Structures are given as structure tokens and as C-alpha cells.
């Protein structure tokens, strides 16, 4: 046992990317430079104390939500760059090696999928639900604010591990689904699959805790009068998503742990030899994996319900149908996982059963699409950025759903499984579905979080780039799949494929332009925040409770917890002329104090994971002791609440209501003008 191994584990000079690849070195360089720039900027501006006390140790669901979304956007940038690299390679590699060696290309498709699912999609939707859901149900925070912060820390730790994998060692090449035996030590003895396993473990535990947190919050913290059937649709989808999280994450934790036991302790759960059975991995992974994709889509469905109703100036069509459809989707999502491996050799009858159950999920989904379309019927549709995303979603997602029904037929799936047709299908539902939903939510709730609207022109440009770019990048993949091209190919030998891969590459560039538009949008919006400020807090003439508080939302959310008696409670209050009233009495508000437990467990988790990857056992032990110690220490904290005195609450509320009274209300055709200060002109009922 050499002293080097005791201290550094498997780390060696060869772990540095400059020893084997220029491109990898450039990527690592970007991570290192980005890290130095961020740390440097914060240091130069003297903001460490501010960040620690106001953000990192905050247990406020709004701030935690914002931090989740920031993580998602940074990881989105990385994963889109990786996608562009792969598209460029495939546009070049007809009977040619291209510019990416197979080793790098296969790491790219693995990290691209892993990041987009676990470190972009999940954090984005968890961040959005975190921000909006407690406000929508009239609560002050989630049920377990400190656990919320711990979840954020662990997700951040997993994302940090993914970024570390760019700088040290190589990532797995087994795809985001990591099938053995290819991910066993026999075929990948390096650290790659271990990076994958521990990043997923951190993310998975984080999400399990979040699911519990959200579900309990929705069950227990709804304001008086808000029965389940008076909740906004977004909260319903958040509830179903949470239930899915609680039930679906454990199989992932179990299966990655079993793979880790194979790799670390020489066990044989999934190996070729000694009784291992890779089919068990496939079953357990997809038992998680299918509900996972419904976790990714349901919050987006909820966002679209809010956005379409709001920007049609109308009640949502079919509220009860939508709730029923959401519940059906949530339940059915546990009955379909076998459709991910129709070709694994089980009998035709078994396949047929799961094919039918998969198609059944298409029914409630189709119902939702038509319900949103009918919400626009005889409404007054305003084509702001979130609504543009919604309309693009309705059109494009319908196509993606159709390709899903095609894949649900085992007979057809036997041809197109693992081809680019499959890749086109899931991007067709994830991009117009999940991503557009999250970008719409970002644009929609940004004013509530920060007190000013995002620039509308760059927002619309972003929608255009994403929509056109998506179609150019992925519709060719349908053709390629039908023409017989498998997924994950670094090079191909059929000349018929190249015209399509070239169009796809151009589409990837347009998507990159879309990312650029989003970046410019935030810069321009911050510059113009004074002109676009909406202090009154209701820039879109909203219908649900979050629009009844000022913008940025106060830390206590509601000065007085509201009582509701219908769906769309804020809309109802405005129609009755009861909005913006001074309460007869204000009370002291109890809020939880900040806690360092989240950042400590985040850093500790990342350190333990890094130690496990590189076999640095002392680091694993120390990190686990720190985590356990921090949890125990937290148990001794008795003074965990702070009081906002009633006088302070009254002062803030009266100041805001004074602003309201001085603000001229704007009709909807001035919604994106500077004159929109967040007060909506309400038509008499």
C-alpha cells in the first residue's frame, strides 16, 4: 500500500486532461477559469459574507428555488455545448473519423444525458416548484425548510462532481442509463462509471427528500379554505410530481448502489459471470426511469396550465379533467417501464401488455392538450413570451407524443429501438415539454422573484431560436432513425445519413443562438430593471395567490395568511373589489433561522463522492463523519426561529399598499410597456 495511494487514491498525473486530449483540456480550462472568475469576482466585490448569510444558509424557499434555477441554467449551458460538439462530429463523420475520438464522443453523450436529466431538468423544475408552490397555496414556506436547503446542497454537490469530472479523469462512456456489463469493472475499470454512480446518488437522495418536502407541504400547509380542488393546477402537478419522486428515486439509489457493490467489492449483481443478471439492472433502472420522465414533464404541464389560462384572460378549461388526467398519468407511469426494453427477449404477450399500458398514458396527455386549446377558445390571447412557449409546446409536443405512441407498439419498436428515432422522440417531448415549460416559468415568475420584468423582445427571439432550432436539430433524427441509424455512433458509413446530420448541426447552432438570446435577455433586463420594475406585484393580471403579494415577494410571503373560497382565488378577490386592502390587524411572524446544515452537507457529500470515485478512503471517512456530525449538531439547535414583529410587517405592508394606491393600473395592451408597474386594470365582473 504505497503512501501515494493512501493520500491520493487513484489520482495520478494521468488524470489531468492535458495528458491525453486538447479538447478535454480546453473544457477543463473553461471550468477552472469559470471557477476562478466566479470566486475572484465575489472576493473583489467583498460579497462572501452577504452570500453566506443571505443565500447559502438561507432556508427561504424562494431563495432556494432561485439557486436551483441558477444551477440548472449553468448546467444547461454546458450540456448544450456538449450537444453541439456531438452534432458537429456527426455532420462530419460520414466514413471519416471527424474531430472527436470515440472515447471523447462517448463521454459526451453520457454526460449530456446525465446532466440534462439530473442536473438541468430536475433542478430547474424543483427550483420553480420551490419558488412558486408555497406562494400558490398561501403558505409561508415548505414544511421542512432546513431539509430543503440540504437537498439544494446535495444537488449542488452532484453538479460540482460533474464539473470536477471535466478536470480530473474521464467520465463513464455507458450512456446516461449506464447498462452493465459494459459499466462493470471488466469493461470500464477506470473512474468513469464511479463518477456517474455517485453523481446520481447525490442527486437521487436530494430529490427523494425534496419529494417528501413538497408532498407534506401541499398536504399540510394549504391556507384556510384551500381544499385540494381549489388548488392551482401547477400545485396539483407539483403534488403528483412529489409522489412520483418519493416512489421512483429509491429504485435508482438501489440499482446504482448494487452496481457500486459490484465495482468496489467484487459482487455479482449484474456481471456476466457468477450468477449476475444484467436484466435486473435494466428492470430496476427503468422502474425509476419511467416515472422520472413524468417527474420531468408534469411540472411543465402545470406551468402551461397557469400560463395558458392567464394569457388567455380566461378560466382554465376542464380543471377537474386536468386534475384527473394528471393523477392518471402519475399512476399509469408506474405500469409502463418495460417499454424501454421491448427487445430484451421477453414474450410477445408481456410486451403487448406494456405496449397497451403505454398507449393508455397517451389518453390523459391528449386530454390535457385539448383542454389547453379549449382554454384559448373564446379567450383574449396575449402573445407574450410564456404564451409563445406554450403554443410552440402544444404543437411540437403533440408530434413528440405521436412518436411515443409509435414506439409504444412493440412491433414497430423492434425496428427503431436504440435508433435516432428514439432520440428524436424523447428530445421532442423533453425540449418543447420540459425545457420550454421551465423557460416559460422562468419568464412568468421572474418579476415575482426580482421585482422587474424580463425583456420581452429578447424573450421572443429566444422562443423563435429554440423553436426553429429544435425542429431543425431533431426532426432530421426521425428520418435517420427510420433509415436505420443507431444512436451513439461517432462515425457512420451510409451516405444517405449525411444530409440529415448536416441539417441537425445547423439546428444545434440555432439552439446555441437561443441560449445567446437568453443570456442577452438577462443582461438587458438587469440594465433596464428600473424601467421594467413592477413593485405592485401583478404584472400579468394573474389569477392565483402568488400575484397578490408585492414584487420581489416579501420574505414572509403573506402578511396575513389568506382565506380562500374558490379556485383562482386572487382573480376572485380582484373581481369582488377586495384586493389590496390593509388588514385590520397584523401579527408577529415566525420564520426559521438560517442554517449551515445545507452547505455543510452539500460540500461534505461532494467530498465523500469525490473520495469514493478516486478511492481516497480517508476523505470518504472524514466527509461522512462531518455529515453525520453536522446532522447530530443540528439536533442540538433549540433556537431555530426568528420573529418579524407585527409592527415591521405592518410597516412594510402599508408602504407597499401606499405604492399600490399611487400606481396607475394598466390594461393588458400595456402589459409589456414601462407603464406596467404591476397593477392590473380589472374589468368589472
Amino acid at each position, binding site marked *: 500500500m504505497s503512501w501515494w495511494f493512501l493520500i491520493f487514491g487513484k489520482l495520478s498525473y494521468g488524470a489531468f486532461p492535458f495528458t491525453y486530449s486538447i479538447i478535454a483540456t480546453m473544457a477543463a480550462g473553461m471550468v477552472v477559469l469559470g471557477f476562478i472568475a466566479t470566486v475572484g469576482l465575489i472576493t473583489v466585490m467583498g460579497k462572501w459574507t452577504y452570500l453566506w448569510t443571505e443565500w447559502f444558509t438561507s432556508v427561504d424557499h424562494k431563495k432556494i428555488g432561485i439557486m436551483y434555477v441558477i444551477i440548472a441554467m449553468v448546467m444547461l449551458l454546458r450540456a448544450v455545448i456538449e450537444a453541439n460538439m456531438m452534432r458537429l462530429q456527426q455532420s462530419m463523420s460520414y466514413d471519416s473519423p471527424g474531430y472527436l475520438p*470515440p472515447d471523447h464522443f*462517448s463521454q459526451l453523450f453520457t454526460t449530456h444525458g446525465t446532466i440534462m436529466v439530473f442536473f438541468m431538468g430536475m433542478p430547474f423544475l424543483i427550483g420553480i416548484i420551490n419558488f412558486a408552490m408555497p406562494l400558490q397555496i398561501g403558505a409561508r414556506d415548505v414544511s421542512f425548510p432546513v431539509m430543503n436547503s440540504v437537498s439544494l446542497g446535495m444537488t449542488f454537490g452532484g453538479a460540482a462532481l460533474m464539473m470536477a469530472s471535466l478536470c480530473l479523469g474521464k467520465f463513464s*462512456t455507458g450512456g446516461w442509463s449506464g447498462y452493465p456489463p*459494459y459499466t462493470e469493472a471488466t*469493461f470500464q475499470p477506470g473512474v468513469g462509471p464511479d463518477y456517474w454512480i455517485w453523481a446520481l446518488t447525490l442527486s437521487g437522495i436530494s430529490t427523494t427528500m425534496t419529494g417528501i418536502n413538497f408532498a407534506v407541504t401541499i398536504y399540510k400547509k394549504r391556507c384556510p379554505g384551500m381544499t385540494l380542488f381549489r388548488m392551482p393546477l401547477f400545485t396539483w402537478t407539483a403534488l403528483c410530481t412529489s409522489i412520483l419522486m418519493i416512489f421512483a428515486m429509491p429504485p435508482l439509489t438501489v440499482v446504482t448502489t448494487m452496481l457500486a457493490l459490484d465495482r468496489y467489492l467484487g459482487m455479482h449483481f449484474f456481471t*456476466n459471470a457468477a*450468477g449476475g443478471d444484467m*436484466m435486473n439492472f435494466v428492470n430496476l433502472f427503468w422502474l425509476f426511469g419511467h416515472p422520472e420522465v413524468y417527474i420531468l414533464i408534469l411540472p411543465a404541464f402545470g406551468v402551461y396550465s397557469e400560463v395558458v389560462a392567464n394569457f388567455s*384572460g*380566461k378560466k382554465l*378549461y*376542464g*380543471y377537474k*379533467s386536468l386534475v384527473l388526467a394528471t393523477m392518471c398519468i402519475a399512476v399509469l407511469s408506474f405500469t409502463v417501464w418495460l417499454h424501454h426494453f421491448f427487445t*430484451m*427477449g421477453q*414474450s*410477445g404477450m408481456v*410486451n*403487448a401488455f406494456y*405496449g397497451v399500458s403505454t*398507449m393508455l398514458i397517451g*389518453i390523459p396527455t*391528449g386530454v390535457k*392538450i*385539448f*383542454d389547453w386549446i*379549449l382554454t*384559448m*377558445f*373564446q*379567450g*383574449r*390571447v*396575449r402573445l407574450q413570451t410564456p404564451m409563445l412557449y406554450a*403554443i410552440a409546446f402544444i*404543437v411540437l409536443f*403533440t*408530434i413528440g407524443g*405521436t412518436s411515443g*405512441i*409509435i414506439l*409504444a*407498439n*412493440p*412491433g*414497430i419498436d*423492434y*425496428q427503431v*429501438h*436504440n435508433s435516432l428515432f428514439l432520440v428524436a422522440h424523447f428530445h421532442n417531448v423533453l425540449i418543447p415539454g420540459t425545457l420550454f415549460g421551465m423557460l416559460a416559468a422562468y419568464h412568468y415568475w421572474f418579476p415575482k422573484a426580482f421585482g422587474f420584468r424580463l425583456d420581452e423582445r429578447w424573450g421572443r427571439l429566444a422562443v423563435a431560436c429554440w423553436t426553429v432550432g429544435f425542429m431543425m436539430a431533431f426532426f432530421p433524427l426521425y*428520418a435517420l432513425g*427510420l433509415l*436505420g*441509424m*443507431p444512436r*451513439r455512433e*461517432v462515425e457512420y458509413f*451510409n451516405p*444517405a445519413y449525411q444530409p440529415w446530420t448536416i441539417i441537425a448541426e445547423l439546428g444545434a447552432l440555432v439552439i446555441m443562438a437561443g441560449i445567446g438570446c437568453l443570456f442577452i435577455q438577462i443582461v438587458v433586463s438587469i440594465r433596464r430593471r428600473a424601467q421594467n420594475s413592477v413593485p405592485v406585484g401583478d404584472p400579468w393580471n394573474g389569477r392565483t395567490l402568488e400575484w397578490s403579494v408585492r414584487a420581489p415577494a416579501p420574505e414572509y410571503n403573506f402578511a396575513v395568511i389568506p382565506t380562500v373560497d374558490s379556485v383562482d382565488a386572487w382573480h376572485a378577490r380582484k373581481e369582488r373589489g377586495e384586493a389590496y386592502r390593509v388588514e385590520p390587524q397584523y401579527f408577529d411572524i415566525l420564520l426559521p433561522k438560517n442554517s449551515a446544515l445545507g452547505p455543510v452537507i452539500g460540500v461534505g457529500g461532494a467530498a465523500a463522492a469525490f473520495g469514493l470515485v478516486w478511492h481516497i478512503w480517508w476523505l470518504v471517512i472524514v466527509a461522512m463523519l462531518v455529515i453525520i456530525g453536522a446532522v447530530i449538531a443540528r439536533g442540538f439547535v433549540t433556537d431555530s426561529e426568528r420573529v418579524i414583529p407585527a409592527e415591521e410587517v405592518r410597516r412594510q405592508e402599508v408602504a407597499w399598499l401606499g405604492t399600490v394606491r399611487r400606481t396607475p393600473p394598466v390594461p393588458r395592451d400595456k402589459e409589456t410597456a414601462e407603464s406596467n408597474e404591476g397593477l392590473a386594470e380589472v374589468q368589472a365582473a
Partner: protein
Amino acid sequence: MSLRLHVAPRTILTGALGICLTLALAGCSTHGSSFLAPHGMVASAQRRWLLETLGFMSIVVLPALVLAPYFAWRYRYGRKAAYSPNWGFSWPLEFVIWGVPFAIVGILSWYVFTPEVKFDPYHRLPVEGPVLHIDVVALNWKWLFIYPEQGIASVGAVALPVGRDVEFDLTSDRTMQSFLIPALGSQIYAMAGMVTKLNLEASTVGDFVGENTQFNGMGFQSDRFSALAMTPAEFAGWVAKVRSSSLKLDQTSYDVLYQDSTAAEAAETLGLKRGLDSAIYFSSVPQGFFRSVVGKYRQSAAREAPR
């Protein structure tokens, strides 16, 4: 909207879609790699099911694709159109929205249970004549084809007589792979210590693409082979040609195949000249070879293996 589906619109839709798809992809020859240009009864059926599924789905999809942008335009803010801000439910519409998709899923379920199950990989195909057996061993990054009745083997190319049901028995000696000849029919996984089955039939003569669709390492893109469909006479000639090869499949040659390499690289190692035809032909195969590969990993599966 009536729930009874007439035949005529469905056929029209299917035909229209077929034309559109063919036109869209006609510009590019598929080069024998796609079930859109099928050469076997299974692939033909799969192409038909694809077009028919698209046809049925357009009943729900086309209204959605048309109505969404249309309503957004017709009811846009500022245009003088009817405004019903509190209208949120209609029983007749609910029946249609839930009912029509239910009916379509019902029809598609019939497809799934009836014709599709008939062409399940494990089922013998409705073709006259004896079944030709081929045992397949998946390796990184090549496929070994053993003809047990002819006592020969090949790597990189598999010959199939047209008009006969060819039943493949598949296993792997390395990673999990997925065997696919798109022009002929379905794919099936090949896994170590297990035997899977696949029935295919070639209807016309030709040279078709065969591939692995389950990523298995740095040579994955080269993990392909030629599927040569030939007349029975040509097939007999091919068998004779393989029997005249100087190479035998034994432990030494198999050790070469077992290494991580493409078929072309293995051919070079075995001393064959690199030519257009990088296939490797073995004139003899040890008795029980396929079973022994399966038995390396699981004795119970080996006992049940056909040969």
C-alpha cells in the same frame, strides 16, 4: 363527432402518409439499411404498422396542430371575437376528448395484441419449408455466425436463403448487444449466459446492412455486418465456399475473435488480406461450441441451449 371509424378515411390517411414519407425519403436511397424499403415479411409488416399508426394518430393530432395556432390567432387580444372568460367545461366536449383517444388506443391495442404478436421474434414465421438455424455469438465488435447444420461459421457476413424462415439463437461472450437487420425485421438483445431467439425471412435477393444498436465501446460504430440474401442455389454455393476456407474455428482463432477489435482487424490478425470483403470464413466448428459459450456464464442456460 361519430366514434365509428369508417374505412375510407383511414385508408386515405394511410396512403397519404405513405406517399409523404416515401417522397420525403425518396431522395435518399436507403442503401439496404431501412425497413422503409423492406425486403422481408417482418419488415414489410412493420412498415405497414408504422403508416397505419400514423394514420390513426392523425385523427387526434391534426386537430390539435391546426386548432392551437388557429385559436391563438382568432382569439388574440385586440381582435373583436367572442369572449367567454368564465366558460370552463362542457360535457359533450369531455366525451369527445376522452372518448376519441380511448377508441384509437383500443384499435391500436388490437394491433399490438394480434398482428404484432404474430411476428414476435420468438415466433416461427408463416413460411413453408424447413427452418434454417444460425447461432450468433456477439463479440466486441463483431458478430460470429455459426451454421450448426452446415458445420461452418463466419464473421462479418451472414448468408440467408430467400423465402426461408431463418431462426437465430443469440448469446454474447462480451457486452450486451442488440442484433438488427433493419431491411428484414426485428432486433433482439444478445446477452452473456442467456439465449435469445429471432426469426427473420428475406423475400428478395440483396446485400443488406446488419448492425448492433446497443453501445458497447470504442469500436461500436464498426460493429456491423453484411446480411447477404441469396437464392437457394447461391446459398449452397456460399456454404461450399466457406467450407473450402483454410481457417477453422478453434480455441486459437476464437481467442483472436474474443479480443476487442473490429471484424476487419480480426481478419488481419488471422492473416487474411484486407479486401472489400472483410468477412472471415471458418470451414469447421467444434461440436457444442455455442453451448460452451453460454455455459461459460450460466450452466442452466447452457443445458437448455439448442446446440
